[in-house]
């Protein structure tokens, strides 16, 4: 006799998904799968459109990672034009990508993940949420709101609009930074830094209570992929080279973005719409790798900023393979982002008025890469002789992590799921391992009155044995 427990959809992650846990005859977990049940067709949607429309269009894939999509898209278009973007424009783009990282990490850490840490995995989900967080520690909740607002404010100040700005354009940015904007952004940074350092202190103390979760939440050997600076072993969130390291942080591949098809394959499975990228030399599914904050800190030797580097030294003493440490990595990246924005604002070149290059399509394909909050983001476009899109391939951050998320769900389910009962604590731990990756399945609609959570336990004959619905 076999049974299936279905958690559908996962709460507090973006988009539509479910988790299926396959039990064997003795009630033990035999397999676990993370399904993405909503199809997205952006690659087809863009065919026939002029390539220069892509940054604006691709930015709408996601309301959270808009900036990172626009940057990868703009780079792919600039490769098609064969133009070099001015240095000042590159720096301005970095500032908005750092700000995007801050707002996204703030949302993931404070509002999605921290209720689990602060309130405990066994607490009723009616209380284990942002309201429970606000009741138990309103300062942390307010910090989360404020830090995300600061990230959004920086984007709005520089790019004109907080969501879907049209300031990132093919060839650079639409307008230079004013001295007034520079001062406005600089004035926000001390508060952001204070919030992040306060949170780091609290969270590192809290981690002492979650040693078991650290050892069981997606704790397995894998490779790690991220961008690194062209000339140093430093964290890079825009352009740079792609690097893959093994589970001992030894570099096994270092390549230009144009070479990604030589190193990254993409497999598909009939039970999910999410592709399974893998490291080609290891084959599928053996070529498992992770991207995102944990991967970035495992790939680099330095964050490039002093305070974040101090945290990196301490981070190195922790388990680099546990996906639970994504949460700490997010906070360290926020600190690095604040420091990096300050460095860029202090650059005398930042107010330079020459911020855009112009050209038309000169080659038939282009590849762009940026580091989105959730990891490496690849846009690969093909165009015809008139510059109209003939094809596109996107490997988004959450997709890179697909194999790892499935591995993490299986590992956690084997540790915590008891087939004889459906407790909130065990279901939430399975969900929480997914939340550690902070997947953004986006492209979903967010219409009013959609169901938030549907949990089913299904018997071998399809009979629903147990069911939980959350509004």
């Amino acid at each position, binding site marked *: 006799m076999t049974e299936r427990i279905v958690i559908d959809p996962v*709460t*507090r*992650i*973006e*988009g539509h998904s479910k988790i299926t846990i396959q039990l064997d005859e003795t009630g033990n977990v035999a397999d676990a799968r993370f399904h993405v049940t909503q199809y*997205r*067709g*952006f690659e087809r*949607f863009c065919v026939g459109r002029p390539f220069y429309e892509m940054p604006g*269009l691709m930015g*709408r894939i*996601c*309301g*959270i990672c*808009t900036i990172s999509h626009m940057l990868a898209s703009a780079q792919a278009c600039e490769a098609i034009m064969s133009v070099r973007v001015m240095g000042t424009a590159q720096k301005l783009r970095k500032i908005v990508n750092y700000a995007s990282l801050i*707002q996204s990490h*703030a*949302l993931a850490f404070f*509002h*999605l993940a921290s209720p689990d840490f602060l309130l405990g995995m066994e607490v009723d*989900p*009616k*209380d284990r*949420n*942002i*309201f429970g967080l*606000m*009741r138990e520690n*309103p300062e942390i*909740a*307010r910090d*989360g*709101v*404020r830090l*995300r*607002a600061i990230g*959004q404010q920086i984007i709005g100040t520089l790019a004109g609009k*907080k*969501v*879907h700005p049209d300031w990132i354009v093919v060839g650079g940015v639409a307008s230079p930074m004013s001295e007034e904007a520079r001062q406005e952004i600089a004035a926000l940074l001390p508060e952001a830094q204070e919030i992040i350092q306060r949170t780091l202190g609290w969270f590192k103390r809290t981690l002492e209570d979650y040693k078991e979760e650290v050892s069981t939440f997606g704790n397995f050997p894998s490779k790690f992929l991220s961008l690194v600076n062209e000339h140093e072993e430093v964290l890079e969130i825009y352009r740079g080279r792609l690097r893959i390291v093994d589970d001992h942080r030894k570099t096994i591949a270092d390549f230009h973005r144009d070479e990604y098809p030589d190193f990254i394959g993409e497999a598909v499975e009939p039970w999910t719409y999410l592709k399974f990228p893998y490291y080609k030399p290891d084959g599928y599914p053996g070529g498992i790798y992770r991207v995102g904050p944990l991967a970035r800190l495992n790939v680099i030797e330095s964050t490039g900023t002093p305070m974040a580097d101090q945290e990196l030294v301490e981070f190195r003493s922790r388990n680099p393979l546990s996906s639970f440490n994504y949460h700490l990595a997010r906070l360290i990246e926020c600190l690095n982002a604040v420091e990096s924005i300050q460095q860029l604002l202090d650059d005398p070149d930042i107010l330079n008025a020459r911020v855009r290059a112009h050209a038309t399509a000169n080659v038939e394909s282009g590849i762009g890469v940026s580091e989105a909050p959730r990891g490496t983001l690849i846009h690969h476009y093909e165009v015809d002789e008139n510059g109209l899109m003939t094809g596109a391939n996107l490997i988004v951050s959450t997709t890179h992590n697909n194999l790892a998320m499935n591995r993490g769900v299986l590992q956690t389910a084997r540790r915590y799921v008891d087939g004889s009962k459906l407790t909130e604590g065990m279901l939430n731990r399975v969900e929480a391992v997914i939340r550690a990756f902070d997947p*953004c399945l*986006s*492209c979903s*609609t*967010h*219409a*009013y*009155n*959609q169901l*938030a*959570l549907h949990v089913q336990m299904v018997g071998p004959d399809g009979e629903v044995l147990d069911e939980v619905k*959350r*509004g």
Partner: protein
Amino acid sequence: MTSSDRHKPVLVIGYGNTIRGDDGVGPYVASLLAERVDLQDVHILAPQQLTPDLAEQVAASRLTILIDARIGENPGRVHHVVIESPSRAAPTFQHHITPETLAGVTHTLYGVTPPMHLFTAEAATFELQDGLSPELLAAAEDVAGHIVTLLYNPS
């Protein structure tokens, strides 16, 4: 409403994904209103989704108006509700939050709850496409008219 509240702006948030068919009705209504109301007194936002940080701006408003698409069987039908008790807010959320949760976050963190109106229009399609269906284009005009009335002739 206190005398100090009268000096606060009205906040209008029309949210949704503009390349997911009728999901874009919120931003579309926001764009209509931007041409029809006094922007010195009304702040208009058009995000893809509601997020907790919006609580700061809601708390600083004297009236908040939300516009969204909704699932339904009668495309174009408009619903208008006043978000009442923050205690009815949804207990869980994804990267986006519900209007009730936004009201709850605002009340809990900032101790204020400005009147919050929610206009929703039943969608014909959420498929990947630019622009609204004819039913939702008409509904958007309807919603914009209701909101202008609410702003300038509240009685």
